[in-house]
């Protein structure tokens, strides 16, 4: 009888402990990442240029499957792997293209010819992570890339123009007491950072990335040269035709 009671208590305690444990890490949460161009266009004061844009994925292999971890609010343990619905290089390409086009520049798609300059973006990091800070959950989205342009020589195919680093911090109120009172202790412990907050953080990091990219003097200089080249090409074209 005593043994039965011990076994029952052991099973009950184990079941309770398991209910507190976070779920398997095989869960996935997919984010819809997009960029809304600025109203005026960050590069609109420069003369229009025609350029080619390429985004290449240089992230470590282990960072390509997931862009971060969705964590439990209180313990910080893993709840799910965060992924992007659209491939990350495509997200970055679309964002840069949208801002350049809003500013009046023309970005050539592959097969549309070669622009006056080519901008290569080598993406090295695209991650999201969370941490407790003060009494909040601090979500940090980071994007890093090296921006290059072809040098045109065999021994040095491209020159590095600059690196872009963007970090976006988004704070989410933890509200431990409210969670415990409204949901109970166990659901409060098991609650996790929401998908919309993760999305907001990464979209913010993307907006910061585009901003930093567009405000870099070396990019602006490259665009000024490209605009001059574009102007020269367009003025030379009628003469070529008349010959």
């Amino acid at each position: 009888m005593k043994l039965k009671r011990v076994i029952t208590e052991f099973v009950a305690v184990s079941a309770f402990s398991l209910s507190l444990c976070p779920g398997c890490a095989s869960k996935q949460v997919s984010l819809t990442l997009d960029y809304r161009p600025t109203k005026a266009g960050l590069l609109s004061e420069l003369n229009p240029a025609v350029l080619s844009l390429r985004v290449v994925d240089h992230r470590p292999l282990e960072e390509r499957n997931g862009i971060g971890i969705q964590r439990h609010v209180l313990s910080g343990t893993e709840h799910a792997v965060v992924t992007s619905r659209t491939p990350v290089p495509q997200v970055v390409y679309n964002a840069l293209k949208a801002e350049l086009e809003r500013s009046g520049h023309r970005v050539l798609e592959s097969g549309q010819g070669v622009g006056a300059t080519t901008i290569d973006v080598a993406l090295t990091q695209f991650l999201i992570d969370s941490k407790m800070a003060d009494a909040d959950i601090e979500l940090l989205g980071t994007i890093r890339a090296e921006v290059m342009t072809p040098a045109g020589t065999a021994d040095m195919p491209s020159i590095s123009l600059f690196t872009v680093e963007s970090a976006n911090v988004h704070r989410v109120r933890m509200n431990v007491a409210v969670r415990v009172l409204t949901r109970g202790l166990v659901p409060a412990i098991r609650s996790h950072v929401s998908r919309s907050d993760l999305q907001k953080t990464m979209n913010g990091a993307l907006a910061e990335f585009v901003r930093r990219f567009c405000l870099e003097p070396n990019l602006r200089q490259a665009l000024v040269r490209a605009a001059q080249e574009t102007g020269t090409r367009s003025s030379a074209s009628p003469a070529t035709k008349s010959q």
Partner: protein
Amino acid sequence: MPFAADISRLRDSHMKKVFDAIGVMRVCGRQSMRSGPRICAAVGVLGAALLLGGCTPGSSGTRIEPKLEEISRIQKVGLYVEVQRGFGVRLQYLSSADRGSLEQMLVGSLGRFLGSFMYGGVLGLLVEYSPDRNATVRLKPQSAPVDSEQAIGRALLNMFRTASVFPAGELVQSGSLALARERGNDALLVFTIWRWGLRLPPGSKYEKGDKALAQLELNVQVKLVSSATQKVLWKRNESYVDSECYSLGDFKSQEGLVVRRMEHALQQVCDWTANEIHRTPYHREAMP
């Protein structure tokens, strides 16, 4: 499932007892309303405290877009540096660097009982003896050369001069616009560091001891205010996370590593400031 149901029943009956004891049912109209207003007031105060407690320095990004035309007219700027929280190590999810505010918020909002029970009592103790706290204490001497308003202010002013961010500038000791104006400053640049130190790089796992990976972080708010009109010309929250990762052991053993990374971080923020307020393609090339 029966077990879960038991737990749920237990919780519900317990909550009913608690609510009965504090008179929630009476507020709901089942019994006399004598203690209703008092409870309503208590709940209201608690709610307000919770809301206020949650107000912390906001997310990063531009708060006020730079007024480029007015900024271009600035001849001399006063630089005021404010360090809200000095050097701290935050490698774990719940870090000792944040303990003060956490307790303040919880104790302030929930009252001593819940605050001390939930955090001061349990998590507070864990944090008190956490490796982060030890690392912060051990790295304090390394961070000391750049961990003050004066040191950061001097370094920044030099960087602003070198990068020609403003034609002239000086370090001021107060955030008063009137004083800045008296000293001939057209604007006051308020540089508020609300946190700096080492953090766990995104995407990496925490390891105990000196093997733990760490990188420098710097969170600042930059605000440029016209001393004549008192109008905010530009306001931005910058979050800088260093691209270089080192082990905690490297930061402890390599003399001057923390200072070098902090100077690099300040230089980066200085460059971003230049990019934000000088939107000419040849600005950096034109500097002396």
